[in-house]
């Protein structure tokens, strides 16, 4: 899995400014696990999309503010988080599994069965 630089955004929406969420990526024998920090994103504003060999993670921050609030100091200045990756062929996205809790996305993409490690028996001829 490698990160894709947004050189040629495909859709209009990808032109909008977005923050890059921090991630952890792990790989074991059976697949890849990705964790992404998306604080302030409710479940219904989160998009995890596989498009060919591309993976898009996008979330919109929806923190309710009472009316008449003036922002005095902001470190999170863009209400959108986005990160794009390219996946490799041995990953089976049809069997991927995602969980989202307290602003943390956990995405598991298993390797296709043919790509899983196998012990090869050596016959003594």
């Amino acid at each position: 899995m490698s990160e894709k630089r947004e050189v040629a955004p495909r859709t209009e929406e990808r032109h909008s400014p977005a923050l890059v969420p921090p991630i952890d990526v792990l790989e074991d024998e059976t697949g890849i696990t990705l964790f992404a920090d998306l604080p302030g994103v409710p479940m219904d504003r989160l998009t995890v999309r596989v498009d060919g060999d591309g993976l898009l993670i996008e979330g919109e921050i929806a923190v309710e503010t009472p009316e008449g609030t003036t922002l005095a100091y902001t470190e999170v200045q863009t209400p959108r988080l986005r990160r794009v990756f390219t996946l490799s062929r041995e990953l089976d996205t049809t069997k991927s599994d995602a969980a989202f809790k307290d602003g943390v996305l956990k995405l598991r993409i298993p390797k296709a069965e043919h790509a899983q490690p196998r012990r090869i028996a050596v016959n003594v001829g």
Partner: protein
Amino acid sequence: MYESLLRFPTDLFAELDRMQREMQGFGGLSLPSSIRAVGRGAFPAINIGSTPTAIRIDAFAPGIDPAKLSISIDRGLLTIAGERASDVPEESEKLSVYAHERAVGPFKRVVSLPEDADPARVAATYRDGVVTIAVQRRESAQPRRIEVK
């Protein structure tokens, strides 16, 4: 509590802000900033909002056990502290770690509150990974309309 009043949530200002921080880092132009300001990428990121009746602090702290979060006010300083467990196990022969960017371990952020903040009336909630702290302002300091008789 106000690092700069000329702060708007637009990209241009965000960029200028970043440049200002970087220049300060290299001993260049030293524009005044809060003594408690920390570098970009601090965990958790904080937004502060203000209404006539309250001060609202949003701390972007995903994946935290709210029971392990400590929020305190002492002499006008609000402290948010806690610890974040790692989701990344030790790297081994069978496990490769390609990215480890998410914050791990103890964290602490301090915000100075304005003088009219009432430390007795504070409420905190945790939702979608955001800690929201509302500190009410003292009533005597709130804007009041004075009747002319």
